[in-house]
């Protein structure tokens, strides 16, 4: 088994839904998807993130650590949330990603973790 990161990115262009019923449906769909991941033993970890404005960047590559407000790069796109799953191969991971994308109504990027 391998681990894959399924990340959901906001492009900063597409409007996020504001209708409460739509949002509630999305949460319910994601929760159902999470349950399925757990039931089938594919679940490792998952979470949604607060908006990008809440981020802080730490740079300790120099002598002194520098803490700054905001994301590390000035881009419109940002990470909204992610899953870490166990899957036999890419095809299995892609199948999960399709379900995840439909549930959270966002594009999902699939990346393999380096082998331990």
């Amino acid at each position, binding site marked *: 088994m*391998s681990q894959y990161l399924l990340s959901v990115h906001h492009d900063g262009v597409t409007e996020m839904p504001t209708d409460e019923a739509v949002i509630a449906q999305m949460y319910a769909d994601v929760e159902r998807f999470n349950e399925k991941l757990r039931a089938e033993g594919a679940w490792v970890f998952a979470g949604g993130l607060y908006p990008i404005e809440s981020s802080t960047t730490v740079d300790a590559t120099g002598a002194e650590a520098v803490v700054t407000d905001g994301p590390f790069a000035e881009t419109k796109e940002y990470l909204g949330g992610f899953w870490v799953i166990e899957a*036999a*191969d*890419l*095809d299995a991971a*892609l199948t999960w990603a399709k379900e995840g994308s439909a549930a959270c109504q966002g594009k999902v990027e*699939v*990346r*393999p973790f380096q082998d331990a």
Partner: protein
Amino acid sequence: MTAQAQVEGVFREEYARIVASLVRRFGDIDIAEEAAAEALLRALEKWPVDGTPPNPGGWLTTTAGNLAIDRLRREGRRGDKHRQAAMEAERRGAPEPTPPTGPVTDDRLRLVFTCCHPALATEARVALTLRLIAGLTVPEIARAFLVPETTLAQRLTRAKKKIKDAKIPYRVPETADLPTRRTAVLAVVFLVFNEGYVASATEEGDAPIRADLCAEAIRLGRLLRELMPQDPEVAGLLALMLLTEARRSARFVDDALVSLDDQDRTAWDRALIAEGHALVRECLARNQPGHYQLMAAINAVHTDAATADATDWGQVATLYNQLYAVSPTPVVALNRSIAIAELDGPAVGLALLEPLQLTGYQPWHAARADLLRRLERFDEARAAYDAAIEASGNLAERAWLAERRDRL
């Protein structure tokens, strides 16, 4: 044929089988390719002296397998459990381990689906398929696609790394995914064919090399047919390529393009046409129409007519209607309107063609020009030919269009 050419010929024929079997056993394309190349060197040494073995493919596969094991032992690469299992089995003299999932299929089919995986870029799929399945060398593929060898080599390296890192499986997809995945495989083969077919119309010196791509695509088409004999779209694609290839030699006279209605039909390759027609009949009997089958059927109608005037345009129009139902693209709509123009007159055809507005597409302008000519609207026809010439990137095509325009 020299002894070397003979060995290399066998090697190319057997390449996909050798590599696919090694990939399954060792789970690594690089190891498979290296071992296969080494086995070729052994064959080049031994066969001219000892004679060609009774089963050359088997000899190459066994030799390559042994070389891979020797090499892995030497390098102490035992990490991968696939490889370890294969080496253990080999040591005990046990049969090769069977793959963990899926029904028993030809290893080559698994590798085809790996090479044409949707997670790879289209150009990577094409390069991998030509390299691993068709057995073309890196310089050959680079020349055919007019890219530098280093670019092509990098493209292959990146693709193989992604297969390894992301764990793109060596497996025939599950039933639910099979139709889409099969379509992706067919698209790669048809792309190779078209690259060769369109290239044969250029005046570049390397045109013959690129035209070889048609032969390679047909060879791949035959292989897919052997591997998926029950699939009507596989049969349809092969038929389409055969019926198109059959007309190749008549498409050019003295380097000038000749349109379908002006072609010398006695120059068409009858053997390819007969093979294509048989496949189309088989598809009709199955009655599960699809994109390639319908395209093949349209080509079958054209190649069935002894003269251009004898073309059954009613049949062609019906087939285009069916094709539009499965592939509702503007290009199909364009071809349908051309068929309908033959059946119901240029005015009807033009009325269907005008709204498509495929202004960047040479065939749309050319078809429009022809219909305007037949309606004796010559000024408009001339302007349309000019637009067609503008939209064409192909020298022979431009010359043909200019000639049509000047004849007005």
